[in-house]
């Protein structure tokens, strides 16, 4: 009877622990005082208190149309593309400055192990890697600017020949010949 009781307690607590672990694994706690902006059920942005001056309107949503955004061919897109903006309510313009560290939290809904969060730079039309860490089944990145972001799987490095380097090597070699020639000329003159 006693053994049965003990076994029951052990099994009961094991089940509780397993459930707790599963529940915790899919939860990322929001820091105290931080604002949570939901983009959808899988993605949210954490904004600490006093990150901006004045009243701001923060929006984040997944985008339906990829117009104006170049999608890389050599990388696997693992999430939707999201767009987030911070609008200064008073001046009605986008805010560029973050006074505190903002975190983008993306739930991993993919199997790929070598994933990274990238933001889209409209100037160069490039997806640039953000510093990101895995925490339970979330990927947490620190954005440097507002705009588009998404998760991509690891890509191969671009090994294209750099023609500028080839030209520079020719110039360097030519200059070196002139320098050596000049030194040689000075030595001969001295002799």
């Amino acid at each position, binding site marked *: 009877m006693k053994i049965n009781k003990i076994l029951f307690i052990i099994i009961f607590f094991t089940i509780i622990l397993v459930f707790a672990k599963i529940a915790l694994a899919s939860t990322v706690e929001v820091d105290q005082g931080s604002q949570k902006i939901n983009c959808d059920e899988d993605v949210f942005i954490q904004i600490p208190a006093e990150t901006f001056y004045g009243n701001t309107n923060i929006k984040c949503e997944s985008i339906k149309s990829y117009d104006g955004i170049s999608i890389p061919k050599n990388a696997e897109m693992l999430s939707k593309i999201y767009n987030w903006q911070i609008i200064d309510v008073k001046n009605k313009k986008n805010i*560029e*400055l973050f006074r505190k560290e903002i975190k983008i939290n993306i739930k991993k809904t993919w199997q790929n192990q070598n994933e990274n969060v990238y933001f889209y730079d409209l*100037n160069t039309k490039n997806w640039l*890697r953000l510093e990101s860490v895995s925490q339970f089944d979330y990927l947490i990145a620190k954005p440097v600017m507002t705009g588009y972001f998404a998760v991509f799987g690891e890509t191969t*490095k671009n090994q294209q020949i750099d023609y500028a*380097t080839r030209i520079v090597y020719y110039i360097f070699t030519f200059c070196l010949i002139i320098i050596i020639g000049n030194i040689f000329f000075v030595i001969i003159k001295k002799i």
Partner: protein
Amino acid sequence: MKKNNLLIIAIIIAAALVLRLINLAYPNWQIFDEIYYYNFANDYLHHTYFFDVHPALGKLFITLGLLIFKGTLFGARFFTAISGTLILLFTYVLALKLFKNKIAALFALIIMFAETSLFVESRFALINIYIVLFALPAYIFFWQWRESGKNYFLYLSLIFISLSTSVKWTGLFNLMALFIFTLIDNKTRNYLFNLLKENYLKYLFIIFCCLSLPYLLFFIPEMLKGEHFFKWHTEAYLFHKNLTAGHPYASKWYQWFLDARPVWLEFRETVQGNIIGIIELGNPIILWLGLISIFSNIYFAIYYKNKALILLLLAIILNTLPWIDIKRVSFYYHFIPILPFIILSLSYSLYILWSKYKLKLLVITILILMITFFVWYWPLLNGIPISYKGYLNRIFFPGWI
């Protein structure tokens, strides 16, 4: 001939200004220490308290830019770009004063133009360029005082030293250089002694005012946000003293001269496998030849008793010496205030090769090499995407990664 010379100078300075202003708002996010300076400047505007270990003047320039250009990154970087261009002009004027030769001064201007780390420092909301902006006029006015004997040039020189110190305390190292030069140079020593003989209390008071008032004036914004003068100085000093934590881009003073450890202000991989990077790396052709020129100029300074070279060498030595003993973590950008003096030293050596040894082709080749390096590194000075291979091709040494 005079018109041609002026035209060349104007073209070089205009080109430098255009290169500094072009696409200035890119990267359109804060990089490296901009995170701090941009925020501090914004805090000044919004009367929000913050503690920073550097005096206010450098940050006030960034604040002014934010005020004029309505809080944009372009605004934060604008005055750095303007200052980064002005230092070219100041270097030319200083070279002209010291060497009394337009060709030597032109060489100094071209080398300044081709210097990569000064270019990078001029394009972002960082404050090291402002130390140089005020240090160079201090030397110009000091030399003017030596040449003319008019005391107001000395006062102006001291005011500029004070302004340079109002950006970062390291600006004060220049005062040591000017003071030691005054003691070893007969002309300036006599000027100073005659001044003090006339009425030492009055002139010591004027000198004290020239050195302290501009610094105090630019400390007012700190006081307005609630800082106590002595408490702030104690805290800032203790911060520098105790800052011993390492950093991947930290470097020692001797590595600066060898161009051994640059600072990557930004480094990101793109999903297409390219690299977007901004490196604060000295132009190696300038730094390595500059180092050789220091040794050759020690010979010229001693053998020919060339006072201009003695002043330059003192400026290099006394701006470097404190860093040998300073225990805090140091970076390549601490070398920025020393760099113009190395460039002046190199320009004099090139001038000697040009005029004394008639090696004009050699000098032109060296200048072409410097400019070629600058152009080749252009993508990594501005964060323009390049292929991974292109990035690797530009890394000469493991220390550059």
